[in-house]
């Protein structure tokens, strides 16, 4: 079946069985191997992508469900050649070690940044992403740091 998906802002037509997992279509025919498979059953979060703005586990979503919808993967986070503040913070503040959880973690963190923060805490927003390396402290610090940088960029000064 021919499906139309908007991925990282670009419209793609892809030939796939509607019952294929979104993760396999992203990693296979679309060549977007940034999203990882750590468990294949919705537990590790390494495959997290945004589907119409909401975080989902791409290993549990069938590609048929995505027809006409928009998907954001880790490959879509940078602004051209420039890393997003979140990505920069992960590189600079210890948010990534082995890096296998990082794509999913960044997507969840990105969703958190865009969310109504009073409804969900930072740690809650990444609780579906297992990281076995960092102990999460540097991830939390990286996300907090990125928020701070974002504010600096937006307002040109450190908000007080």
């Amino acid at each position: 079946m021919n499906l139309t998906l908007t991925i990282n802002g670009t419209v793609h037509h892809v030939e796939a069985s509607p019952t294929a997992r979104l993760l396999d279509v992203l990693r296979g025919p679309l060549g977007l191997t940034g999203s990882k498979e750590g468990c294949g059953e919705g537990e590790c979060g390494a495959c997290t992508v945004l589907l119409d703005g909401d975080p989902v586990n791409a290993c549990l979503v069938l590609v048929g469900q995505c027809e006409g919808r928009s998907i954001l993967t880790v490959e879509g986070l940078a602004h051209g050649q420039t890393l997003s503040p979140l990505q920069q913070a992960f590189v600079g503040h210890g948010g990534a070690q082995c890096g296998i959880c990082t794509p999913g973690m960044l997507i969840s963190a990105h969703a958190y940044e865009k969310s109504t923060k009073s409804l969900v805490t930072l740690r809650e927003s990444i609780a579906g992403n297992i990281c076995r390396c960092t102990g999460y402290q540097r991830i939390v610090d990286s996300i907090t740091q990125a928020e701070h940088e974002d504010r600096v960029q937006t307002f040109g000064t450190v908000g007080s």
Partner: protein
Amino acid sequence: MSQGPSQHLPTVGKSVPRADGTPKVIGTARYVDDLPAMPGELHGATVRSPVPRGILKSIRFDPNFDWSDITIVTAEDVPLNTVALIAEDQPVLAARHINHAYEPIVLLACADKRRVLLAKNAVSLDIEALPTVLDVHESLKNTHTVWGTDNIQKRYLITKGRADTEDSVSAIDAVLAECEVRVSGSYSSHHQEQLYIEPQGVVAWWDESGVHATGSLQCPFYVHKAFLKTFGEQPSRIHITQAVTGGGFGGKEEYPSIIALHAALLSKKSGKPVRMIYDRKEDIEATTKRHPAFCEIETGCDKDGKLRAIKMRVLMDGGAYLTLTPVVLSRGALHASGAYEWEHARIEALALATNTPPNGAFRGFGAPQTIWAIERHIDKVAAVLGMDPLELKRKNILKLGSVTATGQVLHTSVAGVECLEKARAVSEYDRRRKAYSEKQGRIARGIGAAVFMHGAGFTGSGERYLKGKAAVDLLPGGRLRIRTASTDIGQGTETVFRQIVSDAAQVPLSDVDFAVPCTTHVPDSGPTVASRTVMVVGSIVEAAAREVGDRVRKEQQASGGTFAEAADRLLAREGEVTSLLQYSPPSYIQWDDQHYRGDAYPCFAWACFIAEVEVDRETFEVTVTNFWSATDVGRAINPTQCRGQIEGGALQAIGWALFEELVWDKGIIKNPRMTNYIVPTALDAPPFHTVLVEEPFSFGPGGGAKGIGELPMDGGAPAVAAAVEHALGIPMDDLPLTPERLFARSASGAQT
């Protein structure tokens, strides 16, 4: 452009960004399963034993299944059917004797991934079941011999003081009988799955240059050695490459040899490249785990808390084959007496075989198990004496000039007291300890501490035998390239090695490259294990970089120009400018392997971890609310990465203590999934307050760095258990501290 020495700004000590960070955050880092399919590539799969022990009578391939496009490999196809490691007891594929559940028997490959899974279901195994041995106590009785002649895979004996005599048992018993206060206890710890988030995987192929394997692995030369043995190929025809690796923690130390051999066997038979990627279930079931351990301890001390004598027996469950068990047991035994000084000691350690999947390397490598036991025991001694446990630890901790159980005199880089005092201060231990001792409501709070050390590098004369090598090459434009088999599996080797080289050669960080670890192109630096990468291999890399930098600068002084120009002249003249060096351990190391006596490690890294918990008295749920630590790293080359190692290791230990539990039923794992093998999430993790202490080791790179990869795994569990004991009054001696076990223990009236 490269700059001269005058402009160099030191990078060691600075938290420079991760060198491999950018590809990891934009999604272009290629882990093994991200590598593009090779032409004609097949998917491999493994048929495994469903029973823990038996005799394989026959293998039946369903005649109704279409086998035309399936490659089949059995034991008969294996040129030399043994996995080369310490011993040669483990077959690559089981031929007749099955010694654990999930033991590999048949390999299958097919271009169509779905068909290979169908083919797996079309294979049936006729196995005659044999009686099994599933725990160490049973194994010790040797009612059924499942390994060697007596099930004993390895034994060590460490003796000190009056116990250092022929009849060490009577001698230590006599010393204990003279002690004012005697305390005994037994302590157990359980399996732990590494649960790296990237499962094991490899791609293997054969071509005119020999055999190739690229995979998720820690030690490319282990796989090289295994191929050498099994395939009997020339060393130069074996090419093992590390792909970007999504965590290892020891789990990708020895196991990758097996999956790589399997993929290469399928590839040899089919003539096609073969990709083998385990799914999570297979990874949890079939690969190595942390050795369970049972420790019995009897100690004697004075009424004022001065520790005198220790008698300890450690039993470790090695599983069905030897793998690295002797080395794990060794490290466990060498850390068994903890961070304390004993006049008299007798430590006996045994590893026993069982019909469970072989246990193997996991961060800490035996030490977390014995440190769990000794820390719990010292807490028990404190309770008997009516002393604060941290005070008792402070009183007996090893100091400069102290003598360890193996007779090692600590004459350098000792920071136990400093770590203890720093952690105590930053956590406000004394205030909280007092406050939480007051009667509490449904939610009980507690705080507890663990003090410990971890030997950095290989044991005793290990490094002398190993002769680890690393190289630094000069490249055009004055760039430098590091060539080493020490892999970055997330711990930050690439970044830290670049920092070391940048400072040693006085070139900018951006001018230092790190070669992909491939056995064809890098020297054998020894394995990426034992907290040795920075301290040992880092020091080789540092010396090599200094040598290359000096040569360029000499050229610069002789004929002028910039560093880059001098480098190009040198390269034009000499063709190749490389410094390939071999490690020479500090000459003071004296080790007697026969009697397990002497300098067990060149130095130790030290730490004190303090956990604060809340326990719900009705549900027995434990939440770690704060975690303070002070860790001596010698010299923090990259402080952010040091903290990341410490916190990540501590959380693995917290997981081991509270949540992680493999459930076994007659040798079969009942919970081989992430749904039911629970590791901590961001909500389970406490805020970490991490203090770095720097007590330099003069032979370490960057001004004295020591190894810290494993240390943080050692102290988390006993710190949490001490805090739980403080909160509930229940001394837990057996891991894990799940609500069910806490409830059972409290119901049995074990309150102190």
